[in-house]
């Protein structure tokens, strides 16, 4: 985990004059499971394609073990890819698909037979040797794609939304499977997804991207507990994001009140964004609350209730295990260490209360908004 395998230095990339990556700096270490996470159009797939050699950066350098590989074609890189929708060769059966890379490297047929058998066993595809990809289910095709890439013993495996086409339960199983394969092989995994839960549960390191820039790099717990800006806080998990002022160290003022908190290091009276996770707010009687408001919505989620509380016009989301009746007046209690203070950023004010859950909801209800194709597929998927 210590030596840097791949280094991206201030990568810029434009397509038809539109900038999709601006100044990407990223270190990827040996054996690491790195996830590039972000909404569609954030540049995560382009970053992956640059590492794979399918795109060349306009500016900046791609280093592999310290050597510049900007112009090295994909077939000379010790990197293999599991493509989105798999791209299995339709004219070859499962065996020949998996053996494809080894045959190119002139590995003797007996060795190929052994290695393909081992790989098919590891991916649970024994007995599928003679099937054509078209006759396989999504999950099976997925495994063939992984086997086809891994059999070449790459230094790095790139995975481009590999679980996107699978249903929820199978996705969970495949997440565990990928984790297991990662541990067993020790190959560096670079994984692209827009699913934050997937990213948090699988990765050593999460790279949150938006608008062609890296927003935050960190371990899943860091990203969740210490988001650097409103975008990350909103994208990873659920958050109430409020406008606030840091009166002094450990004193934050928001929602018309002053709260004790644990953060410091801000200028006196510096405007900030405050993040409070829904599970960190306690529901108490009005007179014991630091804030009070009216319940406007209650949703039963199985092991908890998700309630929306209107506090002076700002809609909070709160997760609580006790039932609260709609229209009830309740008090809210927040521990000092549940208050996370962030510097203002370009994303301040874009995310915040829970009048709606998603940006999409705002604009799919808007007749003037034109839906681009990219967004349409995201909505459908």
């Amino acid at each position, binding site marked *: 985990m210590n030596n840097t395998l791949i280094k991206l230095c201030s990568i810029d990339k434009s397509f038809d004059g539109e900038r999709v990556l601006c100044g990407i700096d990223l270190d990827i270490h040996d054996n690491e499971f790195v996830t590039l996470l972000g909404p569609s159009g954030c540049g995560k797939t382009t970053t992956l394609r640059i590492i*794979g*050699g*399918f795109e060349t950066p306009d500016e900046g350098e791609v280093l592999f073990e310290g050597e510049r590989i900007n112009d090295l*074609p*994909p*077939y000379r890189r010790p*990197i*293999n*890819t599991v*493509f989105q*929708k798999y*791209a*299995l*060769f*339709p*004219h070859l059966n499962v065996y020949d698909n998996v053996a*494809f*890379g080894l045959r*190119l*490297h002139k590995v003797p047929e007996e060795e190929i037979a052994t290695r393909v058998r081992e790989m098919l066993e590891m991916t649970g595809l024994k007995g599928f040797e003679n099937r*054509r*990809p*078209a006759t396989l289910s999504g999950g099976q095709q997925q495994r063939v794609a992984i086997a*086809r*890439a891994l059999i*070449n013993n790459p230094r790095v495996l790139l995975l481009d939304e590999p679980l996107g086409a699978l249903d929820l339960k199978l996705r969970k199983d495949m997440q565990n499977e990928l984790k297991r394969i990662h541990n067993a092989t020790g190959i560096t995994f670079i994984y692209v997804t827009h699913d934050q839960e997937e990213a948090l549960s699988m990765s050593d390191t999460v790279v949150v991207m938006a608008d062609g820039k890296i927003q935050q790099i960190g371990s899943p717990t860091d990203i969740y507990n210490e988001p650097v800006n409103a975008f990350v806080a909103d994208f990873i998990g659920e958050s109430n994001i409020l406008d606030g002022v840091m009166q002094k160290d450990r004193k934050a003022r928001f929602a018309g009140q002053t709260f004790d908190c644990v953060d410091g290091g801000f200028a006196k009276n510096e405007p900030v964004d405050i993040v409070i996770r829904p599970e960190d707010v306690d529901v108490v009687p009005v007179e014991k609350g630091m804030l009070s408001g009216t319940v406007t919505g209650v949703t039963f989620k199985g092991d908890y209730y998700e309630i929306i509380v209107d506090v002076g016009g700002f809609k909070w989301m709160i997760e609580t295990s006790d039932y609260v009746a709609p229209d009830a007046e309740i008090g809210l209690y927040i521990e000092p260490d549940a208050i996370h203070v962030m510097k203002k950023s370009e994303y301040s004010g874009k995310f915040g209360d829970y009048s709606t859950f998603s940006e999409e909801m705002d604009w799919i209800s808007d007749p003037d908004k034109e839906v681009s194709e990219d967004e349409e597929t995201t909505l459908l998927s």
Partner: protein
Amino acid sequence: MKKRLSFLERAAAVPHLVWTLLFIIGPLLFVLYFAFTDNDGAFTFANIAHLSSYAHIFFVSICFSVVATAFCLLIGYPLALAMARAKPSTQKLLLVLLMLPMWISLLIRTYSLMTLLDNGGLVNSLLRAMGLAPWHMVGTGGAVVLGMIYDFLPYMVLPIYTSMTKLDKRYLEAAADLGCNPCQTLFRVTLPLTAPGIFSGITMVFVPSISTFYISQKLGGGNFDLIGDTIERQFQYTSTYHIGAAISLVMMLLIIASVAIFGRFADKEEEGMLA
């Protein structure tokens, strides 16, 4: 309401049905009739039996068509590949250039080719002007094959080009990812995945090549008797209709057989293409 619609639908099919009966089924029946009767209208296998004396003509025709088809494939495949990889605007231009000759009558094109290649034609004038010996071309087998290639090349390029534009780029990326250099990608991925285009191209060039008579008459200078020429000659006199019909019948069966064989290949590939 529904019944009326279905009557209308049936009525709409009538012109096509009449056309098919008059101009496809009818002539086919005539061919069958003439192939198995003699001058008195009596049933006979004599015409078919007589065909053995035309064996060499069948052989020469097949050889010419195979050579022409092979050259069309060798020229057409790289051309289709280059077209499919060009910018969209260039692709359109190349397509128009490819199809432009098809808008001119085949006879005129063949005749023009003959004048170009003639002993006193443009090509030989150029050769002479450059101080080279004139090259006798019209009347050689090469000229006939050249004529076939020239006339039928677009029929090879178009289906291959179509299957190339349908080829998903992800397969090419996957090949490169697994270690294929561009040449290996061409032979291991592009070629097998465009096989349906190749097979239909082969069929579309082979069939008109084997049945042509005009090209061999004009560019072969009468030195080559192909199936098409023979059939044409037999139908100039009523007395030889029967032999002509028998030759036509056998040629049709030959073509059907080869189309069926190629078709099988094409189908097999397409089965695999279904994602």
